[in-house]
């Protein structure tokens, strides 16, 4: 007879950033009678999952699940919507392309229509016509979140949220407090092993004084790239990504005037890549510098007043879960904020932990299954990043690096055959990744089927798209107007909690 496993009595989460807070919140939601303690360790500037002011569409589902409402993020944390990433100059000087979110590029359009309409050889240079509804909307600055209770022309649009990170973190902290998450500020003085490859307790110090120790059944390491719990375990191994990714310094500019835009931008410059992040609370500019660039050239390329320079060592934990310690976010994988994958990976790995939450005793095979899937997620992120650096023009800026076999295989299939092999636990949907490859200027091969396609089909797809685009534009109000409406408090300030967890 199958028995319910004994529940975790206490979970200790190490970290003070937004990854630690959302982890605490999510775990408290899923096991309300388990004590959840956050050990607020000092932060790390290279903790890009913790610094991120955005993620990808998966996060919206995670928010729903743990009861953080979009209204609260918009009203209390300067939230806004991003429908796509726009890429400039990666394939060739003057070339551009877009990567919209969601599965909106219908399979049948991935044919001649997609090539001629959505970018490709004919449009290798210069701006080409919009190839997705998201682009049509972003170009017209029109959008509204579909109400969900009736069909609309915007139903296929997916989006990512942006926010003001400190305000977003505060919002989650206040919910966590209401839910009874405990919080201890301090640093790690010592770790006591549990004799089974994990940790029995953490001794906490404040200003050099031992304050006590936290015992727990499960430790979640959200301490940033140093992975302070996981790295202390004898089993822990790190995989270095520097074989495949260029050495990077990241130069952050001081935030500029806030703006409402439905897209963020990543441009390739001779000095490296430049990401412009359109926060409602401030435009943020980050420069990912190629190795040989001088500080003076870097400052000039940044174009705004600099705020800080961060050096990064890209890599991931070989096994994100060892003993009773699970690493999430920067502690599991540390990499540059290109494509906004940092927090998305943290959230997807958190989702995996919620799915596979162990009982008091961890089963080795469930740990192995978690590690198998988490490693696939990390590998897919690495490959997605590496994809940027082998874009036709990026090779000249960042230099040549060997490619992982997995990415070679994917790029070979795409450039020769216009096909993407299925990738388990991929960072992006196939449609999104296909769009990314186009936006980065990779020439697409032609699928056998589209070589036999009736030219009329492409024409019909184009006409259908134009109809859809017209309907979407008619339906969507100016984005500014929609946001103004969202900012009107409907009721007394939203607590940010969407009711009890539904069982």
């Amino acid at each position, binding site marked *: *007879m199958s028995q319910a*496993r004994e*529940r975790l009595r206490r979970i200790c989460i190490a970290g003070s950033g937004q990854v630690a807070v959302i982890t605490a919140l999510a775990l408290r939601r899923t096991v309300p009678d388990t004590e959840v303690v956050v050990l607020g360790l000092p932060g790390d500037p290279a903790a890009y999952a913790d610094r991120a002011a955005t993620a990808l569409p998966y996060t919206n589902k995670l928010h729903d699940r743990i009861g953080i409402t979009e209204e609260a993020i918009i009203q209390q944390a300067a939230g806004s919507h991003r429908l796509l990433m726009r890429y400039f100059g990666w394939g060739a000087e003057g070339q551009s392309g877009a990567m919209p979110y969601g599965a909106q590029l219908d399979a049948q359009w991935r044919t001649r229509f997609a090539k001629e309409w959505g970018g490709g050889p004919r449009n290798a240079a210069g701006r080409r016509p919009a190839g997705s509804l998201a682009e049509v909307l972003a170009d017209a600055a029109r959008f509204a979140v579909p109400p969900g209770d009736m069909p609309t022309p915007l139903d296929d649009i997916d989006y990512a949220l942006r926010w003001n990170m400190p305000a977003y973190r505060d919002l989650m902290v206040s919910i966590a407090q209401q839910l009874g998450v405990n919080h201890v500020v301090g640093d790690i003085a010592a770790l006591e092993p549990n004799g089974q490859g994990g940790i029995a307790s953490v001794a906490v110090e404040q200003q050099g004084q031992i304050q006590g120790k936290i015992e727990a059944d499960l430790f979640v390491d959200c301490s940033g790239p140093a992975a302070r719990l996981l790295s202390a375990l004898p089993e822990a191994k790190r995989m270095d990504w520097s074989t495949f990714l260029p050495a990077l310094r990241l130069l952050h500019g001081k935030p500029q005037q806030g703006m409402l835009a439905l897209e963020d931008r990543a441009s390739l410059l001779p000095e490296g890549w430049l990401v412009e992040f359109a926060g409602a609370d401030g435009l943020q500019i980050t420069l990912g510098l190629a190795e040989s660039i001088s500080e003076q050239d870097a400052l000039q390329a940044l174009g705004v007043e600099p705020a800080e320079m961060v050096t990064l060592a890209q890599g991931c934990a070989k096994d994100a879960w060892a003993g009773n310690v699970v690493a999430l976010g920067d502690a599991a994988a540390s990499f540059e904020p290109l494509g906004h994958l940092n927090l998305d990976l943290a959230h997807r790995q958190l989702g995996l932990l919620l799915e596979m939450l162990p009982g008091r005793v961890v089963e080795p*095979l469930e740990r192995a299954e978690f590690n198998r899937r988490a490693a696939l997620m990390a590998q897919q992120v690495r490959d997605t990043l590496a994809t940027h650096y082998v874009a036709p023009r990026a090779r000249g800026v960042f230099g040549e690096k060997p490619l992982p076999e997995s990415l070679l295989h994917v790029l070979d299939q795409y450039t020769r055959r216009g096909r993407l*092999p299925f990738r388990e636990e991929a960072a992006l949907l196939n449609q999104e990744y296909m769009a990314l490859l186009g936006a980065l200027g990779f020439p697409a091969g032609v699928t056998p089927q589209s070589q*036999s396609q009736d030219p009329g089909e492409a024409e019909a797809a184009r006409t259908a798209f134009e109809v859809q685009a017209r309907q979407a534009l008619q339906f969507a109000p100016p984005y500014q107007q929609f946001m103004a409406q969202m900012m009107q408090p409907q009721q007394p300030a939203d607590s940010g909690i969407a009711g009890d967890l539904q069982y």
Partner: protein
Amino acid sequence: MSGVNSKKMRVVVLGGGTAGWMTAAGIAKLLPDLASVDLIESQDIGIVGVGEATLPHIRGFVERLGIDEAAFMKATHATYKLGIDFRDFGRIGESYIHPFGSFGEEVGGIGFHHYWLELQRQGLAAELGEYSLAVAACRANRFTPPAQDSSLASTYGYAYQFDATLFGPFMREFGTSIGVTRHEGLVVDVERDPESGDVTALLLKDGRRIEGDLFVDCSGFRSLLLGQTLEEEWEDWTHWLPCDRAAAMPCTHKTSDIRPYTIATAMPAGWRWQIPLQHRMGNGYVFSSAHLDEDAACEALRKAAEGDPLADPRILKFRPGRRKHSWSHNVLGVGLAGGFLEPLESTSIYLAQMAITYLIEMFPQDGKIDPRDRDEFNRLVDMEYDRVRDFLILHYHATTRDDSDFWNHVRTMQVPDTLADKLELWKRAARIEKYSDGLFYDASWIAVYIGQGMLPDAHDSRVSLPDPGRVSGAMDNLRKEIASQVNAMPGHMDYLKSEAARLAEAA
């Protein structure tokens, strides 16, 4: 760009059975500008015609070729199939249905089966199948197509039970209507390029010579091209899947009711199928020749078969396994020539369609075969075979039966490591190894594990968090809702009758 830069690739399909005609029709329909298709078949060679039952994927395949579902069902005397009723597998006297559908829904991110296990521990759970709309419809002999939304009525899919000997001719007619050139004749010699070893032409008995650039071996177990000519190694899986014979015997229908599901009943040396078609009942005994001789199997089938025999039992021989490489040189095997598991879970036609789909995806461009595409095809095909293999082995291994040498063997045999880990993960934590690319997902594994009495030791710790009354109340409501929806469905036979375009005249 249609074929401007390249001449058409000449595809020669050897074999006019189900696999051959599906391949020929698929290429002719989907790649008309890239390929010409010749098919060689001989009336002197019978077709195996295995696979009277199918999986839901066949619908997508048929649809993609632009074939009308009603015409297809009418031509093949097809009935609807919602799943398979497995009897006596885990233990004699016990049965369960593996549905084309799910059981309940996850709640709070925790799989439904964890809640079911908890209720079962408390003695409050009904049989798992009662929480599946597809299973409940099977039990009630009812059918209606699933809804296209995300409601309860959309939680299942369907396939067909059809006459495989009629499917080949149907596809032949379709194939020749869209440009496949058919050659009647026996292949007596295979010409190969002395340097590359590629096959260049097939010589027929009457002296005709059919040249080609790409050859698809659909010659069945004989595997004239891939096996006999290229001597591509066969990976034998008989040690895990010991059944290697089937005795098949068509019978009349015993009642006017037609079940929307297949029955698979475990027998002392294998298992027996009952597949209801519009006009007859397919009966067969799949057995291990190491444990039972052919005469005894035919006798056992005669005794057990449902309905009056329409013919004597016919013996089919097979070997579970697959070629080490399904595509070698310029020859690839589709259907039995490439691999075969066994009829359990009706994967044979699926595996052929899977290979055809990947061939179309990886079809040579500019008239040349790129080794990278061949490798990719082989990788994809191997992955599918290996995953299905583990799932089939589970049906034999997850048993307490000790009433025959056959069951003692499969119960105690060492299973592949990939399966051993899955079993252990299930046993210790009630979890399923997740993959998104493959044939059988969580619900299928859970159906077999629980159906065959392989209950785990422990399930998710969180299932006891909600108020137990609320959980059992919600689960009762689900059962009631399912029962009420099933009650509103027409009987399977009534539904078929109301869709006259789908009925063969003879029915």
